[in-house]
């Protein structure tokens, strides 16, 4: 073979190899929605996340773009063992390319490792732990929607700036609660406020009257609830019973979702201040999307976790289409970070080097019953925290991906 021929053959081989890489594994882009379908977080994510994912696939017009996309789901029952089993099996034997949602921090961190080991994609919308983009950050993972740092910072800073400068914490006595309290305290102090007291409450406590009494006695302007789920709901219900808000103090919910407010009822939750990154009634685009969502969800309105799943899947598909390939995971996530994001729910944004999706955060106050005009009309906007301030700065991450 002459030199020219060899070069041609080599070039052809390379081109063929290149083309072989730029293909979709198994000819299907398979997305797995892994979350809690039956327990604590079923309302937050659950089937709603599956609906959101399918809506994203529809809106992306996958078929017209020549992409075959499938969405499957499973219940990890909030158990890391079950979560890792399903994730491993999905990635290894069922051709799943990306796993989305995964609330419950322990499961999310476990799936984070599995995705890293198998070089696939993991887009988390439901979990709170900021370790996903911090000490445990991974080039295979994108963390959408929210995290504990954003919650602490958003709620804490905005409240202090609007006059709530003395705080009393009711903290759930475990790692998550402690982290929430710690992060919020740092923000409060930095912005000139003061923490006058606090109490650590065992997780799962039903009765908060004792702690609420202590909060009342402290005369702090703001009572910070560094807890989640049932604990938060009980604290708020009982605070209303003891006339705390009527007595002039305000409650700040550090991790409260639309579904929690729905469960508590406006008469008890009114005046509660909280931070979310999505609300169905923000603008025409979110309202239109919500209308389509509730048609499929049987009337349940979308939470910010659902919105995150939708936006995450949409952006993932954009990246896959741009790369013309759904593997290896690292490359797809890289592409996701390269492309700016744009969707009707979060608007324009980006994904940083550490995997953190950046978007605005909103400080909401729960309406009084008289102010609510329709189903799920619960929030009024108090402040917008711009995207570049809402999340932990890169340099404070402790993430090895950040140089």
């Amino acid at each position: 073979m002459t030199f020219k021929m060899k070069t041609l053959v080599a070039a052809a081989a390379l081109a063929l190899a290149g083309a072989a890489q730029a293909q979709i594994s198994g000819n299907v882009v398979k997305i797995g929605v892994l979350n809690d379908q039956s327990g604590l977080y079923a309302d937050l994510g659950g089937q709603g996340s599956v609906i959101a994912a399918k809506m994203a696939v529809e809106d992306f017009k996958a078929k017209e773009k020549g992409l075959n996309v499938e969405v499957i789901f499973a219940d990890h029952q909030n158990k890391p063992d079950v979560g890792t089993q399903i994730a491993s099996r999905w990635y290894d034997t069922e051709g799943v390319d990306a796993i989305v949602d995964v609330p419950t921090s322990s499961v999310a961190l476990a799936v984070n490792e599995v995705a890293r080991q198998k070089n696939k994609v993991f887009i988390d919308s439901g979990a709170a732990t900021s370790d996903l983009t911090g000490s445990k950050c991974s080039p295979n993972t994108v963390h959408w929607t929210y995290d504990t740092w954003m919650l602490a910072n958003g709620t804490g800073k905005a409240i202090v700036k609007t006059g709530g400068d003395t705080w009393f914490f009711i903290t759930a006595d475990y790692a998550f609660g402690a982290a929430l309290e710690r992060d919020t305290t740092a923000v409060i102090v930095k912005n000139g406020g003061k923490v006058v007291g606090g109490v650590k409450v065992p997780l799962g406590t039903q009765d908060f009257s004792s702690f609420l009494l202590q909060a009342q006695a402290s005369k702090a302007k703001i009572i910070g609830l560094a807890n989640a789920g049932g604990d938060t709901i009980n604290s708020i219900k009982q605070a209303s019973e003891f006339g705390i808000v009527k007595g002039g103090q305000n409650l700040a919910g550090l991790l409260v979702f639309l579904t929690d407010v729905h469960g508590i009822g406006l008469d008890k939750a009114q005046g509660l201040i909280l931070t979310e990154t999505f609300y169905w009634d923000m603008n025409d685009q979110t309202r239109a999307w919500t209308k389509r969502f509730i048609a499929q969800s049987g009337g349940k309105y979308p939470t910010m976790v659902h919105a995150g799943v939708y936006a995450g899947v949409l952006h993932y598909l954009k990246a896959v289409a741009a790369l013309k390939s759904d593997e290896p995971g690292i490359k797809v996530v890289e592409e996701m970070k390269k492309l700016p994001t744009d969707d009707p729910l979060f608007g324009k944004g980006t994904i940083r080097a550490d995997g953190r999706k950046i978007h605005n955060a909103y400080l909401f106050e729960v309406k009084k019953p008289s102010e609510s005009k329709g189903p799920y009309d619960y929030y009024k906007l108090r402040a917008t925290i711009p995207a570049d301030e809402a999340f932990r700065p890169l340099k404070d991450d402790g993430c090895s991906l950040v140089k």
Partner: protein
Amino acid sequence: MNTQALFGQLLIGLINGSFYALLSLGLAVIFGLLNIINFAHGALYMLGAFVAYFLLEKVGLGYWWALVIAPIAVGAVGVVIERLMLSRLYKLDHLYGLLLTFGLALILEGAFSHEFGSAGMPYSIPDSLQGVQNLGFMYLPNYRAWVIVASLVVCFSTWFLIERTKLGVYLRAATENPSLVQSFGVNVPRMITLTYGLGVGLAALAGVFAAPIYQVSPQMGSSLIIVVFAVVVIGGMGSIMGSILTGFGLGIIEGLTKYIYPEASSTVIFVIMAIVLMIRPQGLFGQR
């Protein structure tokens, strides 16, 4: 220590104690008379709260109706459970009763979780009981005062029924020596069924009391039930008065712990249980 704050905490502890007392009373009645550990007690408590919620949401009947209807309705469910399932197990090791009720608890909680998720259903304090009283050392919500009074009445009525009335005598005799009592013409199986229904009804009543202040969710019973078991063990598993007194007493101790060292408030009851078991294994009021 601030005596004002202390009184406040003691009062709160008493209120919590009334829940413990009501629930452990139901358990003690069932165990003391039937020798069954009713693991489904937490789920039936939850059922009572949900019945109250449904009565309000679907039928428009409020709290006061629920207080009467829920215990009867759930008690009826208890009767069905006893007739269909528990009665087959009396001849066997009592552990099977425990396992059966454990399975029932799983079914109930799973079914409700499936239907209703976990964020809970809203339920408000009835208007007549809203508001707070300024006692000087604390603001006491009227509803909580009602709970203490009502629980005390229910507890002591039940105790009186079982320990001091003819019906109670029959019940106690029937469980001690069924064949003899049956030969006197007393319908023993029916007594047993009624007893189980009574215990279950008490749990449901506690559920209605809880609905306005605690989150009405499918999981509300499971977190509570294990503490209640500890209360019953400490009190002495067969003693009805023992459960009542221990329930209130532990509520107060837990309340104090919440003030002095809150982090331990969820484990203090178990620690006490361990100590009691070391010193007096039959419980404070139990007989060997």
